[in-house]
């Protein structure tokens, strides 16, 4: 892609971030969820997966989905510095998306967690994968986190015993910033984060198909 001078000045400088190594998790249903990092080329597909949720008021899906939608666009079109996106798929079908960004070598910023398929703690597993990326692969010391929904607040702030740090600024605004420190990660990781590597090549190949969900439990009667 040819980047003209004005566009070049609009783009944030990129840091060379190590990739998130894909993994797979056996969910309670027995289904295998593959978690892998999405590329900019995957974003149009992910936007389609998120779009139906933008009008779902229940459990704050609308706010979370609308913001994630914008963040995906910003990632695709180079308007956010050092963003990353992880996708959860079951048999290639998108079941959840998480994203965030690297602020600097020491600090990460968690953006959003959207579980499309519900009842299997997919959101909890994808959030854990996101924290795993920040702490174990980007080598950061802290991740700044806020939540829009009560579910998010319970899952992250309460279950991870996040440190409340209202004086620290988070790009999303919202509730006062909470922080996952390295020590908290090490404390909670064994009970929160799981998965196996490497992902068998054929399983990963299927995961990368990023098939759009044919149904959304949040939208009864949805047909694509």
């Amino acid at each position: 892609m040819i980047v003209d001078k004005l566009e070049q000045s609009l783009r944030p400088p990129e840091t060379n971030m190590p990739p998130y190594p894909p993994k797979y998790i056996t969910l309670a249903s027995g289904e295998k969820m593959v978690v892998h990092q999405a590329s900019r080329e995957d974003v149009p597909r992910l936007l389609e997966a998120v779009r139906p949720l933008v009008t779902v008021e229940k459990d704050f899906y609308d706010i979370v989905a609308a913001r994630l939608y914008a963040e995906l666009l910003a990632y695709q079109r180079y308007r956010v510095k050092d963003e990353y996106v992880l996708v959860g798929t079951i048999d290639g079908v998108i079941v959840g998306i998480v994203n965030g960004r690297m602020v600097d070598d020491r600090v990460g910023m968690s953006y959003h967690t959207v579980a499309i398929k519900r009842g299997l703690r997919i959101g909890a597993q994808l959030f854990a994968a996101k924290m795993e990326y920040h702490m174990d692969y980007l080598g950061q010391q802290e991740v700044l986190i806020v939540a829009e929904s009560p579910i998010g607040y319970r899952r992250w702030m309460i279950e991870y015993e996040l440190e409340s740090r209202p004086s620290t600024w988070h790009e999303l605004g919202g509730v006062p910033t909470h922080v996952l420190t390295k020590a908290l990660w090490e404390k909670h990781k064994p009970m929160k984060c799981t998965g196996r590597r490497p992902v068998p090549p054929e399983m990963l190949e299927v995961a990368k198909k990023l098939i759009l969900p044919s149904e959304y439990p949040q939208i009864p009667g949805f047909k694509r």
Partner: protein
Amino acid sequence: MRKVGIAGVGHTKFGRSEVPLVDMLALAALEALDDAGIRTGKGHGVDQVFVASMGAGLLNRQSSVASALVDTLNLQPAMAETVENGPASGASAVKLGYMGIASGMCDVALVVGGELMRVVTGWEATDFVATMLHPDAEYAYGLTLPAFAGMFTRLYMDKYGVTEKDLAMVAVKNHEHAMHNPVAHIQLVPSFHAIIEDEDAPVINPYVAEPLRVYDVCPVSDGAAAVVLCAMDLADRFPKKPVRIAGIGQATDTHVVAEREVPTDLLAVRLAAQRAYAMAGLKPEDIDVAELHDAFTILEIAISEEAGLFPRGEGHLAVRRGETRVGGRIPINTSGGLKAKGHPLGATGVSQIVELVRQLRGEAGGRQVEGARHGLAVNFGGFGNNVVATILSKEE
């Protein structure tokens, strides 16, 4: 005493209610009244209303719920009382309805149980449920119902050889049953391998109160269930032949669990069941289907033994042999049980009765127990310190 039957049943979808407490109760009540062919308003014929709720005051800051329901349903001037007996409130309310009709004080009683629990966090709900424990000897030390169940399970395992796999089998079975129950809270069948054997299991199905894991514990649910009780001598008034309440037994045990001589014995369950069998003139082997209070998977096993369905220490062996699933010798928790259908405290005892009525009427669809004639429900209050057993029989 007059014979008493159940002429109508109603049940909301358990899970998360979109409407306030009294509206939710009204939805279940209206379905039951409709099932019994009763129209609200002038000349409705309902003499008495009982509402079972454990948490309306504490969780929803609402008292006198039965009075509110009567007004909402336009059932004045029916008599009305709210019944609180912990998680056994529902069966207690059915018992009081039975007594009202059997005594001749009324002909028709509406019994509704309901709870709106998801207005608080899971932790707050656990704390609320723990308020039924002894305030000085138990609650003050941070004991909760899952903690009691965990300790009870450990003792049961040591004594009778029950394993975590046995508990997971109970969970999977009840979730499978719930898939055929459209009002069940959780419509998902866990994989036995995934929740107990897979290397991801410790995170996917973590311990809540070791050795109990997430899939051994009932969810926190909103929901309501309702039954219309009637005098059997008035059975011709109703569109469907009433299912007879053949026996009711209730018993209590020490409030402080540590004061029990044998902590793995659930004496109140045993006595309540024996009293219900005696009143019904039936034996455990006459029971075709049972709804047992599986707030924790271990309780289904322990209650099945205390109620005489299996010899002591062999309930888990029956689970292994598949005897407690639909199609087995004595299907247990065909509704999905508290484990998968959900456990809105005040609703549970009534919900168990609703399931038995559906079974005895032959209306249970994919979870139907063929030829069921007698059903047993055990509603368990406290940690077994106040238990109500109810036996229903199909009138030929």
